[in-house]
């Protein structure tokens, strides 16, 4: 698996000083930044990407690697109105498009990325949760995402490893996962092949807008100044902080998320398991370990220290896991970790060029592993097409205000 990535980037050239000028400067080497670099370079754009640490070391390399094609559970509530349902359906349609990109991505990048479409199970414990599950099933079907509801003996026959007294489950055959440790670096590798200059240990410290000069932006890094025609802020959790330097107030927030990983056990759990009413995502990886998460918090720490884990997140998260899969009782937890997750207040991506600061672009999306490559491709199309010929969705606008 790792063979492909051998020598994926040259440590030496990564550590050289950045070029003095470039057309597009991408700030941030997570999945958004690296995939955007790849798509832009494919169209022949001159791109430099700067990353203050190493490629793929923040959210893109610490996430759980799950595709969230189904509706995210935090968006669902009992008794939704029709307009709420329609809004969710539009999101599912976006997710279905992302699924298509993932279908072809290993071929596109000519690499094993650990992409598997093994389906996803969403469990409901109570009758009230069952009602929400049925609504979700209905919305997803209307948006073209296959989904099935199973209860009672049918459920027990389909997923004998689940607690037999659950109220029911939905099954989405399209759901899947990929290896987050490989996707970003592979994009970087393919982008570097197409001429993108990567500079690591190189952080943007300040950005100025220039007037009356050849370039529009002057970015000061710890390794010197870079002048660029266009800038893309793909700084993940730090996107808002960076944008604030130019007076942009992005509608986003941050949260530390907790993840658990266990020792390996004989492979039996093909599909990812989630809970409709509680925080749980659980899957068995192809290394036979179980990765268990689902949105339990970790503790913020001042940068560059990594967010630390909270004991109660482990004990609470694992209790939900055992409620759903009691047979994991004697499996050993070997490590926890955490990453910083950036979300938007309206759950829509922030994607495109600022109207207030032409040339300044933002690429940020909450379920960034699932949707990152697709939104990066959309932004690349926008940036490489003649001005005005490609429009990005209105609701993704960089300058929008969210209550």
């Amino acid at each position: 698996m790792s063979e492909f990535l051998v020598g994926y980037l040259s440590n030496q050239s990564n550590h050289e000083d950045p070029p003095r000028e470039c057309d597009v400067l991408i700030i941030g080497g997570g999945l958004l930044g690296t995939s955007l670099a790849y798509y832009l370079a494919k169209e022949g754009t001159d791109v430099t990407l700067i990353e203050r640490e190493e490629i793929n070391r923040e959210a893109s390399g610490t996430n759980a690697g799950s595709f969230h094609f189904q509706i995210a559970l935090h968006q669902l509530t009992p008794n939704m109105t029709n307009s709420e349902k329609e809004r969710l359906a539009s999101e599912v349609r976006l997710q279905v498009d992302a699924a298509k990109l993932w279908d072809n991505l290993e071929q596109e990048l000519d690499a094993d990325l650990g992409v598997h479409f093994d389906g996803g199970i969403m469990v409901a414990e109570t009758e009230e949760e069952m009602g929400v599950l049925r609504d979700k099933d209905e919305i997803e079907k209307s948006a073209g995402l296959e989904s099935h509801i199973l209860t009672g003996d049918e459920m027990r026959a389909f997923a004998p490893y689940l607690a037999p007294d659950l109220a029911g489950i939905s099954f989405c055959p399209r759901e899947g996962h990929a290896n987050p440790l490989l996707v970003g670096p592979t994009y970087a590798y393919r982008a570097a092949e197409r001429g993108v200059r990567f500079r690591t240990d190189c952080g943007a410290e300040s950005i100025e807008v220039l007037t009356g000069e050849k370039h529009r932006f002057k970015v000061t890094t710890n390794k010197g100044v870079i002048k660029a025609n266009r800038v893309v802020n793909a700084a993940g959790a730090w996107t808002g902080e960076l944008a604030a330097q130019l007076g942009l107030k992005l509608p986003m927030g941050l949260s530390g998320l907790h993840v658990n990983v266990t020792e390996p056990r004989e492979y039996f759990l093909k599909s990812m398991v989630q809970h409709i009413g509680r925080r749980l995502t659980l899957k068995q990886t192809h290394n036979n370990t179980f990765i268990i998460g689902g949105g339990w918090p970790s503790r913020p720490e001042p940068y560059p220290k990594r967010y630390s884990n909270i004991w109660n997140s482990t004990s609470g998260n694992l209790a939900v896991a055992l409620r759903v899969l009691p047979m994991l009782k004697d499996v050993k937890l070997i490590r926890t970790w955490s990453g910083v997750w950036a979300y938007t207040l309206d759950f829509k991506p922030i994607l495109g060029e600022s109207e207030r600061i032409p040339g300044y672009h933002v690429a940020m999306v909450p379920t960034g592993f699932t949707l990152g490559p697709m939104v990066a491709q959309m932004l690349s199309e926008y940036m490489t097409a003649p001005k005005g010929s490609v429009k990005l969705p209105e609701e993704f606008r960089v300058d929008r205000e969210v209550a």
Partner: protein
Amino acid sequence: MKSVTGNDLVVIGGGPAGIAAAATASSLGLRVALIDERVTLGGQIFKRVGPGFDLRERKSLGKDYARGSDLIDEIDRPNVTVLTSTTVLTIEDGKVITSHAEEGIRALDYRFLIIAPGAYDRPVAFPGWTLPGVMTAGAVQTMVKTQRISPGKKIFFAGSGPLALAFSAQLIGLGAPVFRVIESAPFPSPVNALRLLSRIGGNLDLIRDAAKYRSVLLKARVPFKYGRIIVKAEGEGRLEYVTHAKADREWNPIPGTEVREACDALCVGYGFFPSHELFRLVDCAFEYDENRGGFSVIKDEWGATSVDSVFAVGDGTGVTGSYSAVAQGRLAGLQIASRLKKITEEERDSTAKPYARELRARNRFQSALNKMFDVGAGIYRLADSKTVICRCESVTRGAIDPIIDSTDDVSVVKGISRAGMGLCQGRNCQRHIAAMIADRHQKPISSVSFQTPRFPVKPVEIGAIADDSVREEKYFIT
């Protein structure tokens, strides 16, 4: 999760350092909880004979055993709670979180915390090191000491440092058939020998011990050779041959000097790594010292670390032996008692004097010894491309080398190769990978940092941790 409250002092680690700390602190009136994951107290050196063994004659187990028993008797006090078979998983918000098979998860609060987790054998990756029959010195010692089993009929001992000599002599003393001992360091130079001699004060016992060990080897006609290092182990399914060679000053094998010999057990003892996980979890400051086992926690003369109310004593801060460990434990106990106003600073200082003196003498001697047995960088270069570096995930040097061309970050190597992701969480391979990175990128190994510390410090069953009373509602972020 149960709470154990009202502790003035929690001591993690029931080896000589931890027991001595608990003994001193409790004798001055502190409420102490002493935790160890093993079934019995005693740590590495005072290792107790396992349950089920008849202990009619304490003496047969040597003076260390008696010394250990005396120390353990000292903590037989109502204000000491001993929690054995109890593993510390993490330390969070001023609580030590532990797991026990029957008691489940318990959280102990504390006003002061002493971390005394000891050390473990330095793993050395050379071709064939994962063959059955190849064992670390510590594992062999435990086997022989607590179970009275010899690991083989013909034992080859390869290692370095005073403990290598002690180990092999002990094994021979217990009747284990050791047939050759090699030491990687060169024969002591006059300068080194003189330095050692000049620091002999307060260490005569150790010199006497060493002389005794040497004579055990001589009497048993077991050859002991300086300046040779293990090169490879071979065999069909288990160890059959070892190859060793002359080593240069940096411990690189000198081509053409190899000797291959048949044997059925290889005992490897090239020093120790301190268990640093808990220190890293509470964010203690570290410094680098290869002879203390790499990154070592920074502490003052009382054992206080850079983190308020957290003390570090014993081998977990760099291996200096059990006498030093006991002295460190006593000093930490005194300092904490004085901080809690159980004794005045004058009382502290006068009681501390003999321990401080002993510690100074031991440390001076130890640093002279360290110079003599300076660990050479060659120890990290023995592996060939097929040698497994990460045992848990079976990752070879050949799989890691090319990734190191792309990065100088241990965590990136881990992410792409899976080295360090298994059960031991990199305890055994991280230092080796750091050394490979240092070699490849021509930088000091001290500049290659560890992976981020995370709990649990030891693997633990999900069923033991899961707690249904913790609800996520109050955590909802969106």
